[in-house]
Each structure stands twice: as C-alpha cells, then as structure tokens.
C-alpha cells in the first residue's frame, strides 16, 4: 500500500483543466519531487491534496484511506503538513507564537505546546528569532517559519511548496540541509521546486508535469535526460 497515492486526479477551473488525470504514489520515507514549468499545476495538486480546492474527479489516498472529502484541518490532523509558496506568516504574532499555535494540533496545554514549538524552532535554526514578529522576518526566515509551523503539527508527510525560491546560495544550502534532516527524522517529503540544484540533489524520485499532465517520472537522472521534460523547459529545438 503506497503512503500517498493520487489516482487520476483531475481539477477543472471553468474550461481549464489545471490538473488532468495525474497519478503518482509516494513511498514512506522518500523525498518525492514534483516539477514542471510555471503554471503547470504543481501548486494546484498541493491544494487538491490538502483540500483547499475540491477535487473535480479522481482520488487522493493517504495510507490507503481516501481523503478527498475531508476538510483541510482534518487532513492536517491525519498527518499531512504543508507550506505555502506565497508564505502566509501569522504576521502580528511572534515566531514562537506562530509555531505554538500549530503545535496545539497535537497537545492541549500551553506548556506542552511551547515546549514542542521551541524544539521545532531549534530544529529549523530559528530559535534566535523566536521573539521577533513574524512580519519582521526576511524571506529566508519566513520560508523556514513555514516549515517550522508545518513540523509543529507532527506530520508524517510534508508538502513543501517552493521553499527554496528566493533564497540566496548560502540559504539554499541550509534549506537543503534542513530538508535532509527532516527526511532523516522519518518524515516523508513531497516537494515542488523550480531550483534544479535543490530538486536534483535531494529527490529520490521525480514526477514531471506540464499543462496539468504527466510527462515523465523516474530518478532525477532519468527525468533530466527525458525528451519531453527538456522540451517543456527549453523548447523543441533543444530536445
């Protein structure tokens, strides 16, 4: 039984098939990359998995159970955390309060929640900024905060939506380290990323889509050499 399975997932906005019959499965413990040019439907797939959007047809199975009709907060409680490409910090709360609020997902007392939040902030290397307001963080910090908040809900699977976008090279290395550290702590990772340095160096398997449809799947090497992928990114003459 796959850990997460998408079965011919379809999402239609008016006349636009944003996601068209995409199927893939993620195994427990792996880092699974999802790539595609801008507007190919990656974030839409995330929004379908955690039910920000209702699915038009198809199904999403988490540990064998269909989650397509569950509300977003229940999906979080089942063990799927996510980050947002366009970061959504709880601006007028401190970093610690942001993470504490999400730690309440698993515990009920403020003491336990703060303890968990402090642990996660240390894990994400954010403990030095924990008393700053979330809106005062630079983009690198906000991306980390997204991850910290998702981690505080103790997910088994985490959906990372372009957590490396907009980072400088040294921050990029730290982000890669953090993602590997997450995998080593036993969390399965489904990641959307544009930066090839990140996606190629950490993914176990990659699924490529364009115009909402699957064009390739395989190891990073196989996908990088795939004609359809090169064509989607660079155009026909390079393929």
């Amino acid at each position: 039984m796959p850990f997460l399975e998408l079965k011919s997932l379809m999402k239609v906005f008016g006349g636009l098939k944003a996601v068209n019959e995409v199927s893939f499965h993620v195994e427990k413990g792996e880092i699974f990359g999802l790539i595609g040019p801008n507007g190919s439907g990656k974030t839409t797939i995330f929004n379908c998995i955690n039910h920000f959007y209702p699915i038009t047809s198809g199904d999403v199975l988490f540990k064998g159970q269909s989650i397509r009709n569950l509300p977003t907060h229940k999906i979080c409680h089942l063990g799927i955390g996510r980050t947002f490409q366009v970061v959504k910090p709880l601006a007028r709360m401190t970093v610690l309060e942001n993470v504490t609020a999400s730690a309440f997902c698993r515990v009920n007392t403020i003491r336990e929640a703060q303890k968990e939040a402090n642990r996660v902030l240390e894990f994400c290397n954010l403990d030095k900024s924990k008393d700053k307001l979330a809106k005062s963080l630079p983009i690198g910090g906000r991306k980390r905060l997204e991850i910290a908040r998702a981690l505080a809900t103790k997910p088994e699977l985490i959906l990372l939506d372009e957590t490396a976008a907009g980072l400088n090279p040294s921050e990029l290395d730290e982000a890669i380290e953090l993602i590997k550290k997450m995998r080593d702590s036993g969390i399965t990772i489904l990641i959307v990323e544009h930066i090839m340095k990140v996606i190629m160096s950490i993914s176990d398997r990659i699924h490529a889509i364009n115009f909402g449809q699957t064009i390739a799947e395989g190891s990073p090497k196989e996908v990088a050499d795939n004609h359809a992928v090169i064509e989607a990114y660079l155009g026909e003459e390079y393929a």
Partner: protein
Amino acid sequence: MKSRNIVLMVTGIVSLLFPLVISSDYYQHLVIIALMWVIIGSSWNLLAGYTGQVSFGHAMFFGIGAYTAGILVTKLQVSAWWGILFGGPVAMLFALFVGWVCFRLRGPYFALATLAGGEIIRLVATNWESLTDGMVGILIIQSFKSKLPYYYIVLALAAACIYVIHLVMKSKWGYYFVSIREDQDAAESLGINTTLYKNVSLLISAFFAGTAGAFYMNYMAFIDPHVVFSLHYISIMAILVGIVGGVATTMGPAVGAFIMVGVQETFRSAFFGIAPKWISQAHALVFGLLVIFVIMFMANGVVGDWAKIKRVVFRTKTST
C-alpha cells in the same frame, strides 16, 4: 510586569472604594454604565479584535440578554435577576444561529451580515408584540433604591469578564483565535477548524454581551427595542469602545469604556451645564472626530499605543 500588578491593585482598590467615597448618585450611575460598557466592549473585542470577525451587530446579543431578563418578569413572573444567569446562554443560542449563517462569509461580508442581523432582530422585537410588547417596552420594578448593589454586581461581572477573556487568550483557544485573524487559510492548514473556533469566539462574546444586557434590564428597569437593539447606541458604541481603548488588548475596552462614557456624558450634559445647550447636539459629531483622530494617530487605541502617548505627552525621547 511589576508595575502592571501595581496598576491592577490600585484599580481594584479604587473601584472597590469608589461608591463609598463618592456618594453622588449621578457619578455612581456614570461609573455603573461605564462598567457595563467594559463588558460589552470586551465581548466585542474578543470577536473582532482577537478573532478578526468584526461585528456591527453586537446590539443583538445585548438586546436579547435584556429581553430575556424582561420577559422572565412579564411572562414567567420570576425575578429579572434570573436574567443575569440566563441572558448570556439565550444570547449564545441565538449566536449559534448567527454563526451558522454569517460565518459562511468572510471579512467585510461578515460585518455586513451582522449589521443586517442586528436590524432584523430590532424589527422582530418591535413587531412581535405578544412576546415583547413592541414599542411599549418592558417596565419592571427595580430591586434596590440604592445604587450600591448594582455597582458591586456590575463591577464583579466586568472583572469576571476581563479575567475570563484573559484566561481564554492565554490558552489554545486564544492562539487559535489570533491565528484565524491573521490568516484563515494558514490557520486551516495548521489543523485549526476555523469554522468551529470562530463560532467558539462568537459564543463567548455573545454570552458576555447578553449578560450585560440582562444587567441593563435590572438596572434601568425599562427597555424598548429602540434602546437595547439600537445600532448607534449599542452596536456602534461597542465598536468605538474597542477602537478607542485598543483593539486586541485585554484592558483596552475597559479604558475605552470609561473614555467613551465620559465623552458621551460630557457632551450630553453640555459640559455639565457650563457650555451652551446646543453643544449637547454635537456628541455624534465629536464621536466621529474622535474615531478619525484615533485611527489616524493611534491606530492601536489608548492601551495599544500607550508608549507612543507617553512619549508625546511627556516629550521624552525614550524609544519603545
């Protein structure tokens, strides 16, 4: 932390001794009304300030509390004091329905829905004469001649209200309320059932507004739909108390209540009889100017921008 405790202690002692020192019925009345507004303002602040769901219709919960107390007397022939117990819960029942309808909407649409809700209830209360006696209103006999019992009852209610909200805001619920205010989508993705917790906030808020309404019935001994369901005098005033005092601060509505009742009374009485009479007509204008001033120069209210006010008033350059 220490200076805050001192302020709290002094406030406590002053408020306990106030009616014993100042025996004037008039000033006791003003403080009783201000304390009632502390409850309504705090209740509005929990929903609008902390949870971000701005209500333009808090008069509905206040009025329902008041009418619960009144109808207990006129229809069931029991003491209106039972209203203090039941006014809150009845307002909560009603809030369940309001939440079910209005929380399908977000932001300004929610605010408009509550505005409509408040007006609907006012019209229902005006026209459902068999239950409410319509515009005739409900008149009861006051239990006490002296203002002292009323003073201590409303003081206890106000203190309990602030304390409960303080506790709520330090708990899981409080974190959830603020998360919802900051970003509802992010909150939902963090496992927060936003619909449920918005309703929790609304229910607590309605409870306190309803309790304040029941107290009003007992104290004033007369209500009619235009008073207790009033858009200007209740719903808008609740917003002013919150904004002037300080949105999303525990003590803000308490400070705001005293400022607003003070300003209102100063103008209503034409500066206690010193100024020409026409001044008393200007109080709505002054409220408007006050709100513009607060929004432009101290958007966080008196409590929220206290550091800034101190800086300006004492002309010190300490940065905070």
